[in-house]
């Protein structure tokens, strides 16, 4: 009886306190007390692999919380140090190199927008495991997708393709990258190959997402063609999708691969994704570097 009353009181107090204004954050989320991998490796005694897991979880949480935060200035400043500590404590933590590179390279504010750090992390992985073709492929991929440096990308794809155990599509991909740069078809091919070969579920999800973005870009091009055609035939641009459907150019409201309606800008004749579409932001037009 007494136990029941006390338990109810404890739960009730917890609930009342939760409803009050929360305690102000002490602001320690952006603090990293230990930054020296050498010190941490010694201090971890025989638990370096477990401590690496802790830092990896912290890196994932830091990336996720920053990405989802509502603040205007998102700071991913701890991401690279956390990943560096993780991979120093456990130099064979392969996912930390591969996922970490994605977190770092992703365009700001969805990611840190630091392809240079992504490449540095993957190169560190390659120093630890020189035969790991996946790291070389990922470096090529960062050059290709984020830096638009197709010469470097082709060079890294070639290097990855020459490593033992590498899939046979890497060398032809290097040739296509060099010849066609970053056109949409070569991008699609890259993502399709990754989708088919990636053994980590998260990488496959990424590949599917990027392929959906490429599909949306194709659909936007086709819809803008339809809008131009409508304007040519009727002498004025359509004001709504209803105008285009009534004229028989479309059979229904155009929706993107994530089932959100495309937005028509009548004054400019352009088509964009809905603001609510998770496919935002679409990759910038392919502008080769140099």
């Amino acid at each position, binding site marked *: 009886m007494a136990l029941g009353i006390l338990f109810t009181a404890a739960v009730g107090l917890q609930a009342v306190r939760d409803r009050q204004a929360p305690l102000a954050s002490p602001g320690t989320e952006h603090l990293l007390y230990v930054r020296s991998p050498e010190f941490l490796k*010694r201090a971890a*005694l*025989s*638990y*370096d*692999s*477990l401590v*690496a*897991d802790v830092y*990896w*979880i912290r890196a*994932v*949480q830091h990336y996720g919380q920053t990405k989802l935060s509502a603040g205007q200035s998102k700071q991913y400043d701890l991401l690279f140090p956390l990943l560096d500590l993780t991979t120093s404590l*456990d130099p*064979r*933590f*392969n*996912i*930390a190199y591969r*996922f970490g590179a994605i977190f770092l390279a992703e365009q700001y504010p969805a990611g840190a927008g630091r392809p240079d750090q992504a490449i540095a992390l993957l190169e560190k992985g390659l120093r630890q495991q020189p035969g790991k073709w996946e790291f070389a492929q990922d470096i090529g991929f960062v050059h290709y997708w984020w830096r638009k440096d197709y010469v470097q990308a082709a060079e890294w794809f070639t290097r990855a393709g020459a490593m033992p155990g590498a899939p046979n599509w890497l060398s032809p991909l290097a040739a296509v990258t060099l010849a066609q740069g970053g056109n949409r078809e070569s991008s699609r091919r890259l993502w399709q190959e990754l989708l088919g070969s990636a*053994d*980590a*579920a*998260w990488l*496959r999800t990424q590949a599917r997402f990027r392929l959906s973005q490429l599909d949306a870009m194709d659909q936007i091009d086709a819809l803008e063609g339809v809008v131009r055609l409508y304007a040519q035939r009727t002498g004025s641009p359509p004001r709504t999708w209803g105008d285009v459907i009534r004229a028989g150019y479309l059979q229904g409201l155009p929706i993107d691969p994530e089932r959100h309606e495309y937005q028509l800008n009548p004054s400019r004749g352009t088509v964009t994704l809905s603001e609510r579409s998770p496919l935002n932001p679409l990759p910038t037009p392919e502008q080769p570097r140099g």
Partner: protein
Amino acid sequence: MRAIGHIAVNVFRESVRDKVLYSIVAFAVMLIAVSYLLAQLTAGQDLKIIKDLGLASIATFGLLMAIFIGIGLVWKEVERRSIYGLLTKPIRRWEFILGKYVGLVLTLLVNVAVMTAAFYAVLAYQGWGVDELARRAWPAPPMDPALLSAIALILVELMLVTGIALFFSTFSGPFLSAVLTLGLWVIGHFNTDLRNFENVVESRAAAWLARGLYYALPNFDTFDIKAQVVQGQHVAASYIALSVLYGMVYPALVLTGAVAIFSRRDFK
């Protein structure tokens, strides 16, 4: 030998009756089970986290048992004055020390076996129903038998810790014995630094001293193959065999020391 057996069985029975031991094992099993939830917090590598946490739990809770039971083995008998009665029986002092040691090792063996069973149960659950593509991402299968080699070396490490705890308990109180054993365990993980000391100091004498300490102090790092096993790296059988041998010889050394000290103690 019969005397050793009797003392060992008594130590085992006494440990089994100890509720603190049950709490430690229950907490370890709970932590191993919770590792499944912890692994959900991350992107990928959930299996690695479960394995890391499972092996670390076995090592840590085993260490706590070895130290906190080991330091009381002799001290309790002296404190309760039961040592006087024991020594009047036809038991030689070395048999007493060895019996205590074997009893605690037996206790550790059973507890590590319980924790290992819980660990494999969580791994089996994690590996159940996972598709082939996801399996390819794992450097080693969930129920990897190689994990047993890491656990075996943890057990050997615990045998060494037990020997050291028992050694200290022959001449000091439980608090000091615990501090000294734990201290030696920590120092034993820095052994590699002692070996490389000559690369950072100019004094030859200091380098020789460091090299001497490297060989004299117990090297606990030699028993740590957790990271390699979790990452699916091959650990040579010769390495494991030599580590096990080292883990037999060093406890023999400290137990000999313990017997020597205990034999000279005057309980009159």
